[in-house]
């Protein structure tokens, strides 16, 4: 099946009902996307499909035919969100971090704190208490007072 993965056209064979999460981790070898709850409650497996955040544990592979899928690996490691999450303690144990960053990415430039709260409401974190995550997202967007 044909789709676009992190900007590159790819051809991947898998069962049409296999979860996108498992196809990414197994067939594609991209293990940055994590499985948390497996029921769409925690957002750890968030990836972008055609620019919109989705839970990869709830998407059958068949539904991304010809779509554009973006995962944490597509950010390359030095994206402003990846830097600020590390710098301000937005990542602690790290399991929620790829999903948090992908959900934050969909907020576009210069989100307000309220937009960040709503945009990340579907992503659970059990370490940070969220404040450092919100700061990381706002700093990455160039808010004043950011560490960079």
């Amino acid at each position: 099946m044909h789709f676009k993965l992190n900007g590159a056209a790819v051809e991947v064979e898998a069962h049409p009902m296999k979860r996108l999460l498992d196809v990414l981790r197994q067939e594609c070898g991209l293990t940055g996307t994590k499985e948390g709850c497996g029921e769409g409650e925690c957002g750890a497996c968030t990836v972008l499909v055609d620019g919109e955040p989705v839970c990869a544990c709830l998407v059958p592979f068949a539904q991304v035919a010809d779509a554009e899928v973006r995962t944490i690996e597509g950010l390359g490691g030095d994206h402003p969100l990846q830097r600020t999450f590390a710098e301000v303690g937005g990542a602690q144990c790290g399991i929620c971090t790829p999903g948090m960053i992908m959900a934050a990415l969909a907020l576009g430039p210069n989100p307000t704190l309220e937009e960040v709260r709503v945009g990340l409401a579907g992503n659970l974190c059990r370490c940070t208490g969220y404040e450092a995550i919100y700061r990381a997202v706002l700093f990455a967007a160039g808010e004043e007072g950011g560490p960079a």
Partner: protein
Amino acid sequence: MRTALSGLDLLRPRTLDEALRLLRDEGPLVPLAGCTDVYVGLNFGTLPATRFVDLWGLRELRGISLRDGGTLSFGALATHTDIVRSPEVNARLPMLVAAAREVGGVQIQNRGTLAGNVANASPAGDTLPVLAVAEAVVVLRSVDGERRVPFDGFYTGYRQTVMRPDELIVAIEVPPVEGAQWFRKVGTRAAQAISKVMMAAVKSDRPRVSLGSVGPTVVRLPLTEEALAGGATLEEAQRVLLDEIHPIDDVRSTAEYRRRVAANLLGQWWSDGA
């Protein structure tokens, strides 16, 4: 995923007509769209179904349109995000926007559909009290034709509907709503948590009230509505409401909590200036 993939079958029609023929000739099939309910069952190995029909690619079922006369028509694939972003829905049916915003997080709102919330038939479906007070119509289609079911008559019991296995929801229609609209969900947190109680209501000469998660299906409260329309005091109406609902204890809440909160919601709505 606990369900074995090898036992699953997915049919992928290209048109609605083809989907309807598959439902008639190849059934029983479970329709899939945003998958936000079905995949939870598959992930935990609790879904007995093994054969599915994927509707997600059927463009003819997408979109929200405003008809002459002011009726809003939600295609079966209209998502909660489509509802939140629609200027027509924001202008005409703000209580549905309020409910759609509290279904899961954005990830769920991006995939989950209004028709899926209706078809899933959970008494905790957040959009269902809104459709009840808006007196929506569920448009069902099969190879044999179309029928229009008033929302009031769509559910027959816990997770039971009047839909036949060869029918699909193709649209949900909502006529213009006269009066001030209100929606409130009560749960452990706004996003993600499944509701303990939710209420939608319309304030007008003909007050309308609906509650979710207080019975086996979403319920309208005709006796409470009648009391309010007849000039009863809030306290009298709350007493009528408590006689009219029969919630249960379950994993999310208790019957007693739900009764108390339901009466409080009626009070909050009725005392609100709107």
